[in-house]
């Protein structure tokens, strides 16, 4: 199982339904923004509690002087609780997410894929202090500042994350948790074929050609990514697959390799196998077969948009891509 795993940051989880699905692990660059957001939220919460306490006990103070120190007590306890237990409480009650994790689309889960337990959440959040070590004291550079203010560098957590397979910091290691990407929206991607030549070419692919799973996967990957390539690169990439196919299908040698793969994709994923022939329009009568090379075709070069008019009898010149 481990032998065929791709070199990637995905991790498989087997559910009780005996389905294995994959998570993408969240690295430091996704987790740092979440941490910073949480830091802001934490201090916001403390300020809010402090403000409410001061206002409430300020009003009560008119009745008795007892409430001044009480407000102080409330604020101190709030600072203590929020700073140490913010992450624990939110992760335990909101299914492994704090506000920052929610905004950044990440989630804490146990390494075996179960939701994080309150105990694990407690441990991993308490140990954050160790992961933030070593601290850089500001007064190293400016001796006037008292040595109270320190900046956590987080080097220990970073080193631990880079050295473990699941990108865990020390707190994650001790608690047996990991952080995974869990985004809210995912578009369902379907590649659309808007090239009129594709159905035409697809109808000539022999019906006895069986597409293997590996081939189907390769075709889908190719079609998803071909938009990011220039026509020259497309041809260069596609040629490796299309040359044997042209031989196999007995097609003409000058067929655009990119177009052939695209047509194969169309035939595999989009066309109905038993549907009547596609409406070919101006391409009717055209044949890519090698034995038909000398026959006159009904194709009109100018009908295909974006097509450079070439003098040679190339029915499907290679350089155009109207899509």
């Amino acid at each position, binding site marked *: 199982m481990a032998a065929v795993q791709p070199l990637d940051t995905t991790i498989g989880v087997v559910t009780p339904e005996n*389905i294995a699905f994959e998570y993408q692990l969240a690295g430091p660059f996704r987790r740092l923004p979440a941490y910073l957001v949480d830091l802001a939220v934490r201090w916001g919460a403390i300020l809010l509690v402090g403000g409410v306490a001061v206002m409430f006990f300020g009003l009560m103070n008119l009745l008795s002087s007892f409430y001044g120190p009480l407000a102080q007590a409330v604020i101190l306890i709030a600072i203590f609780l929020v700073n140490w237990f913010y992450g624990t409480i939110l992760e335990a009650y909101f299914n492994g997410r704090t506000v920052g994790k929610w905004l950044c689309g990440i989630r804490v889960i146990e390494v075996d894929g179960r939701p994080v337990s309150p105990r694990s959440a407690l441990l991993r959040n308490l140990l954050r202090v160790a992961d933030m070590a070593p601290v850089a004291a500001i007064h190293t550079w400016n001796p006037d500042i008292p040595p109270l203010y320190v900046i956590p560098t987080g080097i220990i957590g970073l080193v631990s994350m880079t050295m473990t397979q699941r990108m865990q910091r020390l707190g994650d290691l001790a*608690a047996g948790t990991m952080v995974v990407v869990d985004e809210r929206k995912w578009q369902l991607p379907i590649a659309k074929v808007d090239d009129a030549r594709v159905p035409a070419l697809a109808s000539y692919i022999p019906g006895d050609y069986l597409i293997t799973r590996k081939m189907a996967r390769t075709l889908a990957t190719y079609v998803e990514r071909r938009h990011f390539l220039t026509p020259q690169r497309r041809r260069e990439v596609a040629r490796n697959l299309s040359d044997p196919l042209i031989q196999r299908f007995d097609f003409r040698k000058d067929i655009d390799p990119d177009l052939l793969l695209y047509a194969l994709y169309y035939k595999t994923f989009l066309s109905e196998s038993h549907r009547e022939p596609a409406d070919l329009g101006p391409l009717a009568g055209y044949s890519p077969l090698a034995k038909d090379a000398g026959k006159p075709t009904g194709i009109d070069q100018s009908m295909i948009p974006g097509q450079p008019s070439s003098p040679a009898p190339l029915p499907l010149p290679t350089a155009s891509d109207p899509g």
Partner: protein
Amino acid sequence: MNVAKLLDKRRVDWTELEKLCEAMELRGRTESVSAKHRGAAGVARFSSLYRAACADLALADAYQLPPNTVTYLHRLVARAHNQLYRTQPASPGGWVRLLLEEAPQRIFNDGCVRVATLVFFGLFALAMVLGASEERFPSFAENICGTKMLEATSASFEKPLSVSPDQYSARAAFYIRHNTGIGLQCFAYGILLIPCLFTLGYNATVLGATFGYMSRSGVEGGDHFFEFVTAHGPFELTAIALSAGAGLRLGVGLFHTRGLSRVESVREAGRQAVPIMAASAVMFILAALTEGFLSPSGAPYLVKVVWSIVSSGLITMYFVILGFPRRESTDTSLVRTARYADLVDSRDPHAGGRVDAT
């Protein structure tokens, strides 16, 4: 098989499942999606949609779905899985059991707690003796704590203890935040071993030297100082040692793996350390409440001494009585209870194995 048609057919279900997931993430229930998803019907619909998506993912290879559709399905199943198998909130009973059953058992058996306790109280006693002997080591306490701090401590205890009662809550809150924070920090640094030992040793030495200095005969405010520390001392000093012990357990787990893989060993150590740390945090809070409300009050010294003795007794009972290794009630025990019906049944020839077991 036409994939586009299949996708169109299944997409309706997937979109519905996504909507349900979204509603569950935001509100924890499904009824906001539409009227027919209210209550039990919504939950049932969610689970059947989830199972359908699981089946689609399982068959993705057979359907020859394009890779990015498979990726989409992975996300969808993961998202629904997270909603179906949610975190169970901690029950109060669980925390009570953790504190009263698991923690004392661990503390009694944990070597790291013993080491931390020995280090802490050993250094504390040593520093106290060194700080107290004015003739042999006249400058020890000053060198450790600094003259300024010692004089400030001495000056603050010159007058009898009588903090006005309305300051108690603020003081207690300050001690909760400050001391428990130090304890938690000591615990967290335990996974790196050295910072934890340093914090432990530093606190032991400074506290010991201060105690020693204040016990010198010529120092002003010594009586009031000891009156102040008597009440909360047992809880606070034990809590420091415990938190360091829990931290050391983590650090030792990282380095001394006992045949487990390193990651597994740290996890195991983490599992063992949490109850100890929880007990320590409770003690820190009790100490802070004592330090805030009882220690600075003008209550008679006898009350403080009695509370000190009571708290020491409670701690001892907690460690020894609750913590004494208990044998699990397993089948190896010779004495066990059984109902009469079981015994009669076990004579049955078909259950011959059970006769031997009894």
